[in-house]
């Protein structure tokens, strides 16, 4: 069974600085997708970034980028120029290839941004 592990329950960063959130996963599949979701206190699930496992190039979305290491089964999220609005819980998620939509989530990392 696939699993996703986020080993950092809490992280903090100074406004305007860079922070990296860690995620590792376990799977025997070769094709899959990986995501980072942001969940503010409102509990809305906001997609931050997605990565297709068959693509070697790391995904980027403005200030957000990932470091995808397929062999190591690692998928970290880097937030550059951190803003107060980035404070939230961040979930790493794995999705098997195919239209199952069965997202498997990590435990989450709470990010605090200090002014």
């Amino acid at each position, binding site marked *: 069974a696939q699993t996703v592990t986020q080993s950092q329950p809490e992280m903090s960063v100074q406004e305007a600085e860079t922070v990296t959130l860690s995620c590792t996963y376990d799977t025997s599949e070769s094709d899959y997708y990986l995501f980072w979701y942001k969940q503010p206190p409102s509990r*809305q699930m906001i997609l931050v970034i997605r990565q297709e496992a068959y693509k070697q190039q790391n995904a980027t979305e403005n200030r957000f980028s990932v470091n995808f290491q397929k062999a190591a089964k690692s998928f970290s999220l880097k937030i550059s120029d951190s803003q107060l609005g980035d404070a939230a819980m961040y979930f790493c998620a794995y999705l098997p290839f195919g239209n199952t939509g069965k997202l498997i989530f990590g435990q*989450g990392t709470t990010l605090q941004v200090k002014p």
Partner: protein
Amino acid sequence: DTAVSQTPKYLVTQMGNDKSIKCEQNLGHDTMYWYKQDSKKFLKIMFSYNNKELIINETVPNRFSPKSPDKAHLNLHINSLELGDSAVYFCASSQRDRVYFGEGSWLTVV
């Protein structure tokens, strides 16, 4: 125009009651889901429906019964509510690798 909408957003009810949460998506997706986020904020899939047919049932107690009258709607009915059912329940729909979540329904059982 909300893509995945669920009602009610907040629900406080007593132990032993029966309650329902409704979900509708206007994205034309074939697949819909219910996820549960517990008090520790851990998110886990409960059910998945594809074109009105149940395809995933993740060892959820029989007190939880999903119903899909058509592929745009997936409702969750919970019988004999228990304190441990207090959680945020998310409806979602998907097309391939694109999963869209509703805003969540906060259920509190007292």
